[in-house]
Every structure is written in C-alpha cells, then in structure tokens.
C-alpha cells in the first residue's frame, strides 16, 4: 500500500527534523540534551501564536518558529548550557530534565494545558490522488521541507567552511582554538541551528502530533530512539533511522494493529544489541 509508505515517510521525516538537532549536540558536542523537545515545543507555540493570534500566514509561521527556537537556544546556550558542557553525563541529564520540567510548567502557566492547533490554510488540507496513491498535501509539504533541509545540512557540514570548523572544533577544541577558530561561537551557532530545527519540526508537527505543554516529555523517547538507532556520527544515520522508524510504525499499526507499540521497541533493542553504536556508526570505537 503506497499510501501507507508515503505516510510513514512523512512521519519519519518529521521525526528527523525534530531529532536531528539532538543528534548534533549528542554526537558532535557530546552533550546529553534531554531538553531538546522543549525547543520543539517553543517552535510549536511560537507558530501557534503567530498564526492564530496575529494572523501570520502559515508558511511564514514556520520560519518564525525556527527563529524563536534558535533565539531561545542561543540565549540558553550562552547563559546556562555553556557551564554544563564539561560536566558528567549524569549532571547533564539532571540539568536538562530540570529544564524540561521548568519549560513544561512555564508553558502550562502561560498557554494553559489544553491541546492547541494551528490554523492550516485550505490549500494544505486534504489528499489528492496520483495513480491511486492518496497523497496528503500537508504530508507532502513535510517531505519537501525536510528533504530540502537534510540536503542543506549535509551540504553545510561537508562542504562549507563552517562545517569544517565545526568538525575541527569537535575533534580537538584546543587545536581548533590555536588555528584561530572561535570554538565558542561555532558551538553556539550549532546549538542554535539544532534548536531552530527542533522548533521548525515542532511547528510542522502540531498538525500531526498535536501540541500541549507535555510535548517535550511525551516525545523524548522517540527522539532518543532515532538518535541511538541511527548513531550520532553522521546526519545520514538519524535520517535513515527516522525514516525507517516512521515507516515501520505506520505500517506496523496498519497491518498488525494488535502489535501496538511493541514493534518499535523490539526493533530498537534488536538493532542496539546487534550494532551497539547504532546502525550507521563508522567503526566501533567510542
């Protein structure tokens, strides 16, 4: 059933945009940021306020979401995260969970705890048929946006000066500093982009996943699955992993609804036992 495949890919792509920032902070900066979902939520609410309260067109709401989350990301990075980079993973867990709790309660206070939705323009609603395959317009939008983003990310990381600076900073911050690279700025920019992407994903995802203050907690597990299964050494790993996850989840629920969420967790465990560093890890050293 191609419609199912299509739905699954769209769902997976969405997961990728939501989670790829986490892959970057975890894989490149070795920081366990469980608060990643909070940035996604920020983007979702930013778009909600822009579109529903101020009547900004939906497609303009998406970059607003990106900017809002990126801005929040850079502020928090400079003020708080920067103190925690060098601490142990357990400290990072404590810190980022703490942030999630604060974010959840704060959003609950400001926005209320009911689910919210963004008014999607009519031209993005509904499905059209191509050779008998039902294509959801909104899902098509997701696939297009996410596909472009992935290509852009891959390009930036591999072929631009920023990419090589980032890789240098990650390999050895001291040497990179010696080469005149402003490591702090590189990290901050990376963090901001990662948060911004999460925000964009959050805004895109409202239509499919819903949005309420508990979003960061509800989806934390999914982000972590994408990142661990995909491995953190490249962008491709999480990309393939989230697409697989999306397709498997959607197809699993369609064909064997009895299995419920079993399939995902079992697949994850099997993959991790088989390839502890993730499906697409280069080498095995860690």
């Amino acid at each position, binding site marked *: 059933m191609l419609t199912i495949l299509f739905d699954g890919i769209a769902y997976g792509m969405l997961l990728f945009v939501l989670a790829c920032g986490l892959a970057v902070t975890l894989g490149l900066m070795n920081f366990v940021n469980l608060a990643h979902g909070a940035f996604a939520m920020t983007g979702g609410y930013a778009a909600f306020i822009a579109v529903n309260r101020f009547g900004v067109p939906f497609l303009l709401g998406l970059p607003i979401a990106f900017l809002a989350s990126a801005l929040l990301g850079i502020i928090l990075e400079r003020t708080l995260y920067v103190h925690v980079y060098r601490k142990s993973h357990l400290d990072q867990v404590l810190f980022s969970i703490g942030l999630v709790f604060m974010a959840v309660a704060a959003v609950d206070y400001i926005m209320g705890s009911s689910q919210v*939705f963004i008014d*999607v323009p009519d031209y993005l609603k509904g*499905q059209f048929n191509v050779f008998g395959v039902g294509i*959801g317009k909104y899902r098509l939008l997701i696939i297009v946006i996410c596909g472009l983003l992935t290509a852009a990310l891959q390009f930036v990381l591999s072929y631009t000066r920023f990419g090589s600076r980032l890789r240098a900073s990650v390999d050895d911050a001291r040497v990179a500093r010696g080469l005149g690279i402003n490591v702090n700025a590189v990290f901050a920019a990376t963090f901001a982009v990662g948060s911004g992407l999460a925000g964009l994903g959050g805004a895109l995802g409202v239509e499919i996943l819903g949005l309420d203050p508990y979003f960061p907690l509800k989806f934390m597990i999914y982000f972590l699955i994408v990142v661990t299964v995909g491995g953190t050494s490249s962008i491709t790993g999480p990309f393939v992993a989230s697409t697989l996850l999306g397709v498997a989840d959607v197809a699993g629920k369609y064909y064997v609804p009895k299995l419920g969420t079993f399939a995902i967790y079992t697949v994850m465990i099997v993959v991790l036992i088989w390839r502890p560093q993730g499906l697409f890890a280069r080498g095995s050293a860690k």
Partner: protein
Amino acid sequence: MMKRILVGLLAATAMAAAGGAWAEEPVKVGLILPMTGGQASTGKQIDAAVRLYMQQHGDTVAGRKIEIILKDDATVPDNTKRLAQELIVNDKVNFIAGFGITPSALAAAPLATEAKVPEIVMAAGTSIITERSPYIARTSFTLAQSSVIIADWAAKNGIKKVVTLVSDYAPGADAQNSFKERFTAAGGQVVEELKVPLASPDFSPVLQRAADAKPDALFVFVPAGQGGTFAKQYSERGLDKAGIKLIGPGDVTDDDILNNMGDSMIGTVTAHFYSATHPSAMNKDFVAAYKKLMNGQRPGFMAVGGYDGIHLIYEALKKTGGKTDGDALIAAMKGMKWESPRGPISIDPDTRDIIQNIYVRRVEKVGGELYNVEFATVEAVKDPIKAAKK
C-alpha cells in the same frame, strides 16, 4: 491556591484565637486531580468549576465552612492512593473528590470503604467504579451511557456498517463493547474493531485502515486530549468527504478544544451529557461565569462533572444539617435530584451512579465558533452496564 490555603490557615488560626466562637470545624473536601501531566486539562477544568461554584454559592453550608484541599496526583494511581490516605488520616477530610482516571478512582475505593468517607467521582468514566465501594457517588458519566445512545441513533438513521476505533484501555473497551452490543442487536454490523495505543502519536495508519473498510460511519472514542489530533487526521485523509460519518461518545468533540479542531468536524454526530450550548438559562449563566473565570475558555464536560460534584457535596451537607457522618451523607446523596447546567440529573439510589439526559448533538458553526448543537434528547439514562446486570 496557595493564597487561598494561607487565607484558610489564617482564618483557622483566628478562629482558634477567638476561642470557639465558631462552634464547628470546617468541612474539608480533599480534591485529588491530575494537575500536571497529560491529563492536566481535566484537573484544571474541575478545579476551576469547583472554585466557580463556591464563588457563586458561598463557602458556608449548614453553618459550616467548606474548605477545599487540592492535591495533584499527576495521574499516577499510587500517588492518588497515598494522597487520599493522607487527606483522610492527617487532614481528616470529610470527602474525597476528583479522580481524573479510572485506576485512580479505583485505588482510592478501599479507603472510602474503610474510613467511611464519601468518594465523589467527578471525571473517571468506567462503569465498575461505583461498585467498588458503597461510599462512592459519581457526577460525571459512564461511557456506556453515551455509547448506547449513539448506537441507537446510528441504527435508526440508516447507518449499517461501522468501524470502531477506540483507545486501548478500559474506558475504550467499555465504549466499544456497549456500542457494539446495542448496535448489532439493532441489526447493524461492526465490520472492524480498531484499537490504538493510549500513547499513540499518529492516527494515520488506523484511519487509513478504517477508510479502506468503507463503512457508513466511524465510531470513535479517544480521551478528550487526543480528540484534536484525531480530528485533524480524519479530515486530512478525506474521510469526511468520502461520506464516512464520524460518530461516538462526546469525548472526541470536547468543548474544551472543539473550536480549534477545524471545520472538517462539522457534521460529526455524538451522544453526550453536556454541551456548552445546552439551551437553558442556567447553562448560559454557567458558561458566562466560567469563561470570565478562565480567560474566555469554554467549559468542557469535565468542568460540569466538577461543578455538579461540589453541588452534590453542598446539598448532602444541607440535608444532614452539617453532620459529616459518611453513612448519613451517602444516604442523603442517594436519589438526590437537581437541575445542572447539563440539564436535569439525579443520583441513582441503587447504584449511586448518575442518571442524566443524553443528548444527540451535531457539530455546527454557531456565531463563528464550533459547537455541539443538541438535536435529540434521551431522558434519564442509567448506566446500561449496571442495568444489564440486574
């Protein structure tokens, strides 16, 4: 809340200082609700409704002051149990009330029995709850009440083939079973029974499956919070345009979020006990007052459960003359009848469950906003599952 507790404490101290100027202690109500976590909106609605009621009716009944102690159980039943126990043992509350989900209500039931403290269930909707303790009374609803009515309506309105889609937990099973039993008895056919995990983020696969079965209608029950996501995907998949009617108990079109769901919900037919547009003067006042309290937010059916719950407590106290003996209170509640924002309701003297009108409603646009507009009423519906057991 904190302020209120503080004021209460100050008042209590002042009273103590006055040296028994007030003959009696306040009546304490332990209100245990999910105020954080995925069910938080349930908790907030009920809390707001209780506050509203007390604003409107004063905080003194039969010469005794009412004091509410609000606790957050975060939808974790063992928390509920401990909080209920602490409220009963330490705070010496005279009522425990609230209970966002069925397991929470069940967890507290043995305590109600042992301590002879009335337990007022304001939200949870599984049928068995009231059977678990003779001290439980319910002011919300049972899922079967709505499901049976919608089954009757569907059978009478030319719907032959139905796919059911429910969340995979006890209330879902209740809704599905009562619907199926009544609907097939009336000659209808349930062609597929779908269940979605409670924590499912994406409805698209099950909706696709439902669409592929080409039924006349899709019967759906998901917890109030998920209704919106569901609705979005329902319309995205074009099920509304494919002529598949959406029917179900009213949870999916909860007033709390209905207006955000989009125009594709128009035409959805549900059976439920409360709509914010219920055409009565009392309800108009209630909605207006609630909106004023909650920054323009509409009351959902959970709010009404809370509003009637506190009303039941007030009236029972009036009847006992302020006495807080558990047996007397429960006896006073049995058979009590009153006019609620939802319409006339009463407490079944046999089961202590609620008897209420169930309305069949259709989602329509009223004054630019989406509402459940009632167009048929079935009066005084008892819980069909308990009725069938007799």
